[in-house]
């Protein structure tokens, strides 16, 4: 046998023995995680995973980031029902009815939680309640991220909308808010408001849901749309801002945030996840204006604001259920992240773990403290298998509601198309996948 071949053979033999050899005594439990977090959230989650892996040697988390939205959930659902899913996944609590009800997730028992030192009362009540369905716990909440109103102090200073300390004076009622957008537009010669408004944007749905909740109107009741005339009237109020030029239609997400970040708009309606970018630009001195953030103004009867929560859940993995050891390893990681979620709060999110959320550091964290009150009035997407982040009904809404801002459809037509296409969904039995 030639020398080279002998070497090659030896190398192969070595590799084979490494791959199939007896497991070393210090074997770790490997936890495979799928996450939909990208951008700043993704970097923060990566840091948490690295810290956790460095903090002990028994469990090793390997995280894979997948494309956010419908592809993520389609992949999670299909992989879990054929037993090829990950050991743990980040999900939105708004999708819980769909995922738990469809048999995609594995419930987590109180005993399993207790084994890693967790219990329900460790978490904020609204978030914990949303993690439960039909008497079982299906996920461990990580945060809340509500819709808030960002404002540009530099542009608003001459308008009289700010108080002596430069904070936004309270805005009460939808007319007052519309007036604020008008005044800001006229005074700044820029846009009064910016928000994601292109076709397939989710922002309109979130705002529309918030405004209906503020009128104590439910979207769906007993398999039927139940918002009545308020649905069209509310969408008309939003599209009015665009028709009058206070806001620009057709902006996709990056275009809408850069319009605000570039000083091109006085207000921005968006989730809290843009906070880190503002903090960063502000610190780096590249922002060019002072900013403030307030909870979504009370436009109608109450201060409801749409929100969603990230949470950790364990896929059911049909035919290949996780071992008790694996579940314990997953929950050890989840407990670690909960206890270290102060770093997560710097992403703008409101932590769900009480000890962190109510800590003096969290309460003092800027700019989070300015909108912390929003946590008391959050509304999730209503319960329903078709609801939730990038869920079927939201996907349909995101196709038609923006059409009313473009002027491509009237609000009445947009609502009608939304209803027509969603009708089959809300009548249908929840699917078991």
């Amino acid at each position, binding site marked *: 046998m030639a020398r080279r071949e002998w070497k090659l053979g030896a190398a192969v033999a070595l590799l084979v023995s490494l791959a199939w050899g007896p497991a070393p005594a210090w074997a770790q439990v490997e936890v495979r995680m799928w996450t939909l977090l990208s951008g700043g959230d993704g970097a923060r989650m990566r840091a948490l995973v690295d810290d956790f892996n460095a903090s002990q040697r028994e469990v090793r988390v390997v995280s894979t980031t997948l494309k956010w939205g419908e592809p993520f959930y389609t992949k999670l659902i*299909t992989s879990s029902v054929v037993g090829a899913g990950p050991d743990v996944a980040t999900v939105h609590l708004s999708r819980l009815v769909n995922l738990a009800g469809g048999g995609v997730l594995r419930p987590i028992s109180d005993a399993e939680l207790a084994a890693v030192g967790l219990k329900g009362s460790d978490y904020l009540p609204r978030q914990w309640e949303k993690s439960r369905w039909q008497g079982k716990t299906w996920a461990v909440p990580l945060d809340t991220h509500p819709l808030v109103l960002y404002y540009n102090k530099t542009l608003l200073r001459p308008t009289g909308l700010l108080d002596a300390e430069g904070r936004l004076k309270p805005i009460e009622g939808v007319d007052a808010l519309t007036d604020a957008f008008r005044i800001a537009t006229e005074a700044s010669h820029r846009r009064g408001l910016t928000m994601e408004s*292109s076709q397939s944007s989710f922002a309109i749905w979130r705002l529309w849901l918030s405004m209906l909740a503020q009128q104590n109107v439910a979207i769906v009741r007993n398999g039927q749309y139940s918002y009545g005339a308020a649905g069209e009237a509310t969408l008309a109020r939003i599209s009015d801002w665009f028709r009058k030029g206070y806001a620009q239609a057709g902006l996709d997400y990056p275009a809408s945030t850069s319009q605000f970040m570039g000083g091109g708009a006085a207000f921005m309606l968006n989730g809290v996840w843009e906070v880190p970018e503002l903090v960063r630009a502000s610190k780096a001195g590249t922002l060019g204006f002072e900013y403030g953030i307030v909870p979504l103004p009370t436009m109608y009867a109450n201060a409801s604001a749409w929100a969603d929560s990230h949470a950790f859940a364990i896929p059911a993995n049909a035919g290949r259920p996780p071992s008790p050891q694996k579940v314990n390893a997953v929950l050890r990681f989840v407990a670690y992240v909960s206890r270290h979620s102060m770093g997560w709060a710097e992403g703008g999110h409101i932590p769900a773990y009480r000890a962190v959320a109510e800590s003096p550091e969290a309460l003092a964290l800027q700019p989070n403290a300015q909108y912390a009150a929003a946590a008391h009035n959050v509304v999730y997407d209503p319960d329903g298998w078709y609801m939730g982040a990038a869920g*079927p009904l939201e996907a349909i809404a995101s*196709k038609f509601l923006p059409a009313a801002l473009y002027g491509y459809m009237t609000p009445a037509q947009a609502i009608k198309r939304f209803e027509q296409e969603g009708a089959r969904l809300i009548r249908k039995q929840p699917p*078991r996948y």
Partner: protein
Amino acid sequence: MKPSDLALPASSRREGLPATLLLAPFVIVFLLFFLVPAGVTFWMSLTESSLTRTNAFVGLANYHTLLNDPSFWDSVLNTFYFALLTVIPLTALGLVMALLVNRFVKAQAWLQGVFFLPFVLPISVMTLIADWMLQPSSGVINHILGIHRPWLADPYWALPAVAIGTVWWTVGFNMLLFLAGLRNIPADLYEAAALDGARGLTLFRSITWPALRPVATTALILQVIASLKVFGQTYILTSGGPFNTTRVTLHYMYETAFTQSDAGYAAAIAMAFVTIVILLSVLQAGVVRWLARRDA
């Protein structure tokens, strides 16, 4: 008649085994990957099913819903509109390109390469390039036209824009078909015609076109089917938007099956659409045959 007359001649019997062996791969693949799945799809269309399980037999309920589902009919209209926008240009351009390649003998290999090049691109690359070219402010198409149209976000222009991208992508294949046809025309026909004083368009009308007609018919039928099967381009470039103006039937079927996990209804959409395509193909073939008979 003696029974032995009915038996196959000895030579046929000897060829029976090789024939079976040679046919078997195709028959097995056809059964496994076409006939069985088609049967399963038809069964599924009669049920209420999610992605992996069948919940109930519902008979023709899915088809009943389908008839009254404006989203389905919109998607069918979009698909036909896309076919309308692509079939004629693809066939005509393919012919023109083939004539050009055939004419400029010296640059033949080079021209053929240039025209065929886009066809070898995978769809992900094609859509990336098309997306860049169609960008509102930085795209080369707007630059040439001197405008700022957001092609893919414009409800009226999105589908034509996807169609333009598709024509650029696939026209090379039709060119090859026509080129093969052109090369089959005997050169002495042209020589004889030239001796009779025919040139230019007359040559094309009386020799080239009649000889190419069978090729054109094939290209047209293949093209109609290919265009009706459109999914990838619109899915990646526009995800069916804006406002569903580019959502074709296969995309609606995909959404129904995977986003809404309603596999039963998706199967009904598939069956209905296949029926429409088959009817259309039969009709098209009939028209073509009738035209040929009339001219004969």
